[in-house]
């Protein structure tokens, strides 16, 4: 899969304040890439550099082989963008805004635009200032999708959308992926990324701390398995097994084992005794994500990122 977004050693600071530091990643064409991080981590800074709203201090950012700053106009022809905090002319109606942006893009497929309006059930007759947060988000999402861009760059796109419209959005991202278009979306809603993305980058304190497929991220997750035995079993039987981080003896017949990586050794060891029940707590991506922000060093160690 050829890379359509290429970011290499990208850095940006705001005077003495940190922005992003040496961020490097690629996004393949047709990929749905999730960019995760807590507030202030550098997600929006990275996106604004991609959209040529900010100029990088160092490094390069390219979309479709074009430099994001030098060739920004060329890039914007095939990019759709949703900002984190949409602000538009409050005195225009939703319909006027969409018509205006359709014209600024040199015209769009009107049938498709109307289908998007129907899909989000947007009332286009109301002024932007009269819209609720969710409806404002719909207007901005429609303008990003309406010209069927090759690349979609979406900064926290579902913020403020209700579950039904989030579902609609998920469908649109899925269709974009099926059509071979690329989606780069930032989020701190992990279930959203888990549902829609194929690969994830995690940014913290301006640095990219992890870059992996969603499935790969689950490889570094921490399991907790609670095993109840029919007879007393010494917890030492599990303590030195591969992948075991911690063993907690609940009573003389029950243990809780925390595992990093494969659970194979623990399952095989447990099988030597009569097992009454075995409960595994499988962490969500959220747990994986949160671990990165617990202690930086541990996270890097686990992720294998220097």
């Amino acid at each position, binding site marked *: 899969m050829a890379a359509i977004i290429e970011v290499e050693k990208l850095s940006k600071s*705001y005077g003495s304040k940190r922005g992003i530091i040496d961020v490097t990643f690629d996004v393949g064409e047709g990929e749905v890439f999730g960019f995760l991080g807590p507030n202030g981590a550098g997600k929006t800074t990275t996106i*604004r550099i991609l*959209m*040529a*709203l*900010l*100029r990088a201090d160092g490094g390069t950012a390219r979309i479709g082989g074009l430099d994001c700053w030098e060739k*920004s*106009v*060329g890039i*914007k*022809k095939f*990019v759709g*963008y949703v*900002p984190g*905090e*949409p*602000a*538009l*002319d*409050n005195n225009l*109606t939703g*319909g*006027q805004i*969409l*018509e*205006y*942006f*359709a*014209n*600024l*893009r*040199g015209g769009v497929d*009107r049938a498709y*635009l*109307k289908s998007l*309006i*129907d899909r989000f059930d*947007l*009332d*286009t*007759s*109301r002024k932007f*200032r009269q819209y609720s947060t969710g409806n404002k988000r719909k207007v*901005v999402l429609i*303008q990003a999708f309406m010209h069927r861009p090759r690349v979609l760059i979406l900064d926290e796109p579902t913020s403020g959308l209700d579950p039904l419209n989030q579902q609609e959005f998920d469908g649109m991202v899925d269709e974009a992926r099926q059509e071979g278009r690329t989606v780069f979306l930032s989020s701190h809603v992990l279930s959203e990324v888990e549902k829609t993305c194929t690969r994830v980058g995690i940014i913290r304190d301006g640095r990219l701390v992890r870059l992996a497929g969603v499935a790969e991220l689950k490889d570094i997750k921490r399991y907790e398995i609670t095993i109840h035995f029919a007879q007393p079993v010494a917890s030492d039987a599990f303590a030195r097994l591969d992948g075991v981080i911690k063993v907690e003896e609940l009573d003389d017949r029950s243990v809780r084992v925390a595992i990093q990586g494969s659970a194979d050794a623990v399952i095989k060891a447990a099988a030597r005794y009569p097992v009454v029940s075995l409960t595994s707590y499988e962490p969500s991506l959220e747990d994986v994500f949160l671990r990165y922000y617990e202690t930086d060093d541990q996270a890097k160690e686990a992720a294998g990122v220097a």
Partner: protein
Amino acid sequence: MLLRSIYLKTLRDYRVAIAGWGIGMGLTIVSPMASVAALIKTPEARAQLASLAQQFKWAADPVAAGTVGGYATFKIGIFIMLMAVWPLLAASRTLRGEESTGVLDILLSLPRTRLSVAVQKVAAIWTALLLMGAIVGLLAYVGGAKFKGEFGLVDGLLFGLNLALICAVFGAISLFVSQFTQERTTAAGVTGALLIVFIAIDMVHRVIPNTDWFSHLSPIYYYNLSKPLVPSFGISVGGMLLMLALTLVLTVAAIALFVRRDAGAAVRIPIASRFVPEPVASKALPERDWSLGSLYARSLATVAMPTFWWTLGIAGWGAWMVVIVKQVVSALTKLLSGSASAELRIIQNIGGGAARLDQVFLSAMFELLPILLMAFAVTQVNRWAADNDEGRLEIILTTPHPRVEVLLARFAALATATIVVGIVTLLGSAAAAAIAGVSVDEGNLAAATLGMIPLGLLMAAVGYLAAGWLRTAADTGLLSFLLAGWFFLSFIGPDLKWPDMTLRLSPFYYYGTPLLHGVDFANLVVIVVVAAVSLALASVRYARKDLTA
């Protein structure tokens, strides 16, 4: 310290405005004191000055115009009402504006009553006005002391208090009106229009005999009842108390409405709501709307309504001056027959000096036109800076159009607007001259009206350039300061015998006196070149800067 309460925090937000408006308006009242000192050296000159002032009583009451305090009060006249612009903007912003942006939601979530929040915020505005008034009063006193005025510190402070009271009235009107509007700009616009209407109503009794009763309807009438800088005239305690009462009544009414209505909603007027059709949900797109076709068309549509009102004001002023020139000059001619008058010098600085008084008068009045056009440009630069600061251009800048194109489209729309203002002013003045039978050189009239266009563009270009670095408030403040500075440089500077090199720093120097002497193309080129360079630099800066909302 200043973040300990809503009142102190709001007052802290106004600290720049307090200093800026206080010092600015203070210097405005002091500046005529500087020129009048030279004009009243002899008793004859003093008498002539007082007589001339009578001819301009339509603008302000000429009370003791032969004294430093009286002349300053008269000369500034209605222009002191400029200070009312601040409270009408601040009062419309403090509740309605913060509701629109959602800031007030957070404040209202604190364990404080709505009444407490509203009272603290409004009290901060009135405190700020009192502080501005105090600064104006102190500067007036210092000016009076410097130029041998007849008034003391208490008189100066009373002048500031009187000014603060009339400004508070307009702030209270704005606060009250904003309870009925969804947008703060609507409330500010309505109050601005009322300010102009009240100024006009106050003028009526000075022009038409036996119409005092009508002028009583204007709060400005009660402001003018006090002239603290003329100790022999003194103050009207009743007038000041009436303004205070008006402020209190409107403020209490506004706060009462605010605490009862939904946050973010406007108070419904039952009769008015009958005429507003219920919006019907629609999924249609306005495909034939010309204003949505391009960046330029959208920019033009944005500037259209303000252009209409400013054109009306500027062209109306030009035409009105042409219509009244005969009557004014006839009175002046009788007064000045045979004398090498001091009065002529007053308006010669502005009018440019000429053999005929009608030409000088008309030229002087037309010199105000480019100032108004430049003020219009300042308002539009403010809008551009605000759009950038508030991120309204962000999505536009992610469409395939270079940043420079976005900036130039806005500038082109503003340029179109200034051209429209110039042409309509030319046509209006020419039509007024034909109807009133006033002889005006057509070429010079065209030079005076169309020649102001480059000045408007210069102001816009400088503003766009400054917006490359400054936030909205700072940019607008800088431009307003420049405009006021240029005005005083050109029209007060000659009286103070400032060197030619200094006077050349003002664009009005290059505009010259086109109604008398036609267009000076060399000077025009200077303005155009400076504007073009400023615009080019603004474009370069805008193309390269980080856009952080």
